[in-house]
């Protein structure tokens, strides 16, 4: 089996800035030799796992446990602070809330922009455009600026684009939970098509039934570390026990 995604001892450290640094203030500070208020924070530490091509893996964890950071690292929007990450295949990233849309542009223009960012050429987008619009179910709002869209509408459009770029690895961050039931079903059907085609899925969800329905394996992150990794049913059950007030194993 080939590896689609591999994390080896990955850590991600953020510098938490309570105030946005201003050049004028920083210069003054260095002149006055005052220490700056920088706080470091490890969002992920010692995270190792590998996902084989064709596998579907869910990432579970409470808010702030590092799930979105993990997906951002896979999508390479941010570099790891330590460790190595291997990604094999074309990515279809749908990171939390929105898919790389520009708020001023219309839905239609954003399809072009987003698809081009994901590596498509004009001819390819031209060919897929009708299908993307239809799939999204946005209707006449496709000509309205994205900033007027609801979160669910943005998720619909984002998923529609990502579904059409034919990725090898699909990354979804709480996307299925913001759309309505009807769209979630449509997404699930699409995802099953992906799985049949041997594609890799990595998604963050808070919905256990969805995880169990779509994934063989799950990774439970807690405080930036891997708490459990294994068959979806087992990890979900452990996570559920923890949420219900149980102690960490």
């Amino acid at each position, binding site marked *: 089996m080939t590896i689609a995604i591999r994390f080896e001892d990955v850590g991600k450290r953020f510098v938490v800035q309570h105030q946005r640094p201003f050049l004028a203030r920083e210069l003054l500070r260095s002149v006055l030799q005052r220490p700056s208020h920088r706080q470091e924070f490890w969002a992920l530490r010692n995270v190792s796992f590998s996902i084989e091509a064709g596998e579907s893996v869910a990432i579970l964890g409470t808010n702030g446990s590092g799930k979105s950071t993990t997906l951002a690292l896979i999508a390479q929007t941010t570099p790891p602070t330590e460790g190595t990450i291997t990604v094999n295949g074309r990515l279809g990233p749908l990171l939390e809330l929105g898919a790389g849309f*520009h708020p001023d542009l219309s839905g239609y223009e954003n399809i072009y922009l987003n698809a081009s960012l994901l590596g498509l050429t004009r001819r390819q987008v031209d060919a897929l455009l009708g299908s993307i619009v239809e799939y999204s179910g946005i209707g006449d709002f496709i000509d309205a600026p994205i900033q007027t869209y609801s979160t669910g509408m943005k998720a619909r459009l984002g998923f529609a684009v990502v579904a059409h770029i*034919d990725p090898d690895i699909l990354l979804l961050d709480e996307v299925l939970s913001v759309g309505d039931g009807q769209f979630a079903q449509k997404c699930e059907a699409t995802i099953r098509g992906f799985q049949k085609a041997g594609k890799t899925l990595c998604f963050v969800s808070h919905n256990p039934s969805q995880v169990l329905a779509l994934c063989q394996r799950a990774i439970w992150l807690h405080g930036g570390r891997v708490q459990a990794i294994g068959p979806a049913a087992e990890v979900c059950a452990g996570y559920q026990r923890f949420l219900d007030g149980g102690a960490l194993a």
Partner: protein
Amino acid sequence: MRREDSSSGDRQVGFAIIPPLQVQTFTDIVRYRFVLENLVAKNLKALYRNMALGFFWSILNPLVMAVVLTAVQLKFFGQQAWWPSTFLCALIPYNFFAYCVSGCANSVIGNASLVTKVRFPRQILPIAVIVTNLVHFAIQSTLVVAALLWFPPPHDVVGWHFLWLPVIVALNLALAVGLGLLVAGANVVYRDVQYIVDSVMTVLFWLCPLVYDAGPVLANSPRWQFWLYFLNPLSGLLDSYRAVLFWGRAPDLGVLALATVVIALLGVAGVRSFWKHEHRFADLI
């Protein structure tokens, strides 16, 4: 999911392994030219929607500026009738420079929603600003031509020295790219860079030879003041534009050489600082 079997032939866009973050060169711009196209189209929306109206909006600002300053100069300072020609020869390149640098400063922050969601070479963002302003530059250049025809210089200007023009424009472009990259990255780290840039642009408007000619002003000052003045590469470029377009002679080669050196240094600083920080942009935004 819909599969386009017929189009599967031209689906080679996927890369087997996404290149690591370090591999960032200008060749990326070629691969991502459709992104560049879309970003430029976004910036030039007015022009795309309605050619004539977009043209009008593009020249409106320099036109108003030229009309107002010409009225003041002719009425209160007794300038020659050709003053608008000398002014526009410098104003249009100055505008190009100022819009580029100011636009670049905001280019990464203003596209935060893209930077945090998709991996793509970040230099596309400032480059899109530069390309957009090249289009405006081309449009606004018609004002220079119109002014030179309408308020002709005191003597013939057309000649072989016009061959200097592409050199000067190239240097102007290089200056815009270098400084643009520098402020684009700096503004992600320090949010006041945008304000500093905008203030500096206003200062430069008066510091560079726009409303006055550098030659007569510096004629009686010591040599070191002359070189200090032209240490600012924009001064050297605007002076060169004016020499070629208005006075009909080759630019001062010493001035142009000094500008070239400073532009090269700024270019290296811009490219290096952008490359050094671009992988962190998504974290800092």
